[in-house]
């Protein structure tokens, strides 16, 4: 393998030149996202690191200490490229075009020794293939981080607590109610009960696509916690098909006040807090009577 290591050192300039040519020739190069100088610097660092790593004699295990620097550079490249908006193809081409450059130089160098050429090219190919997998892995990982962050943001914004009347809160739940979601819902609701001094909370589950026993258990927990705070909880938005499913599942919601629609839940809340809503009598001009 020292042949390759020596070659990498000796021919560094040429490899770099060809590699840069390959990268620049690629019509998809995004010089709008990155300057050529930056690219050159990055590429040079990588070849240096590669030469050092190969010299150590280890060419199979890219997780060994010798390759730390390379994996670091590559991860760095993929992460910055993922953020800058490069496509996976462009990021993958970065390492794969290096492979082509090294092969070209080797071909020139070992023209007369086909056996050596074959052996060296195979090993360097294997190595660079593994390295290109690293770029993909980190690229996807950094994209996944973005997705995870968005998931968190969605669960934050999708649980607003609305004050519909003095002493009455409404909480429309949209989407699947999992453990993490329930935690957010419960925290928001209990905090808002404290803040507003409300004594009735309406949980509207019209936007929950499926109510299974786990969702029901989460709902029951939320209702119990609300009761401990001295407030009453009404669950609204139970659709016909969900009612049937709950019965078949055998979930007991009989000691929880439930209503089919938010409107009827609001009506119940009004009567519980002795509020009456009437149509305006045009002659007298009187509005809501409390």
């Amino acid at each position: 393998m020292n042949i390759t290591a020596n070659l990498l050192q000796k021919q560094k300039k040429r490899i770099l030149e060809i590699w840069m040519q390959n990268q620049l020739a690629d019509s998809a190069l995004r010089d709008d996202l990155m300057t050529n100088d930056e690219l050159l610097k990055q590429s040079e660092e990588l070849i240096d690191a590669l030469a050092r790593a190969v010299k150590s004699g280890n060419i199979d295990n890219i997780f060994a200490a010798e390759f730390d620097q390379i994996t670091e550079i590559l991860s760095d490249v993929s992460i910055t490229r993922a953020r800058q908006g490069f496509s996976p193809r462009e990021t993958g081409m970065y390492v794969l075009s290096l492979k082509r450059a090294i092969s070209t130089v080797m071909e020139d160098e070992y023209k007369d020794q086909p056996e050596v050429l074959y052996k060296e090219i195979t090993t360097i190919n294997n190595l660079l293939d593994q390295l290109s997998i690293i770029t993909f892995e980190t690229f996807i990982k950094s994209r996944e981080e973005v997705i995870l962050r968005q998931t968190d943001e969605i669960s934050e914004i999708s649980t607003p607590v609305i004050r519909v009347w003095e002493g009455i809160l409404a909480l429309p739940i949209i989407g699947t109610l999992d453990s993490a979601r329930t935690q957010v819902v419960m925290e928001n609701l209990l905090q808002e009960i404290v803040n507003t001094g409300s004594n009735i909370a309406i949980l509207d589950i019209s936007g929950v696509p499926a109510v299974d026993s786990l969702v029901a258990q989460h709902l029951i927990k939320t209702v119990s916690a609300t009761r401990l705070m001295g407030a009453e909880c009404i669950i609204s938005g139970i659709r016909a098909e969900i009612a049937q499913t709950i019965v078949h599942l055998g979930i007991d919601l009989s000691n929880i006040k439930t209503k089919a629609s938010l409107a009827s839940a609001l009506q119940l809340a009004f009567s519980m807090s002795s509020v009456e809503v009437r149509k305006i009598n045009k002659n007298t001009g009187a509005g809501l009577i409390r």
Partner: protein
Amino acid sequence: MIVMTKDTMQIVREQDVVPFRNRVREFAAKIGMSLVNQTKLITAASELVRNMLKYASGGKVILEIISKSAQTGVRLTFVDEGPGISDIKQAMQDGFSTGRSLGLGLPGAKRLVNEFDIQSTPGTGTTVTIIHWKHGR
């Protein structure tokens, strides 16, 4: 019995539950199942897939549209390689749970669908098969 459409889904994370439920809904809607029956099937599927995640840390589900003597239906097979259930009779009882939940998943799922079958070998894994017909009760 003829299998008309077949699909397999791997379930390994909680995030896989929602896409899986949507896939079941697609299958049920494809054969023209009523909304109530769709919801029953999806809820049963949701219970079983959650069990699989909780007790066996994942597994796979085979989704099929089947046809038998002028009836069409959806068959779901939940296969996991978890610890298995030592006492199925006990697990099928209402309110029995080893995981501090309501204990309604298995018996509830059985009540929700037309056909329910559970096979389990401790140490090897569990396979649950459910069938819900288009014109199920």
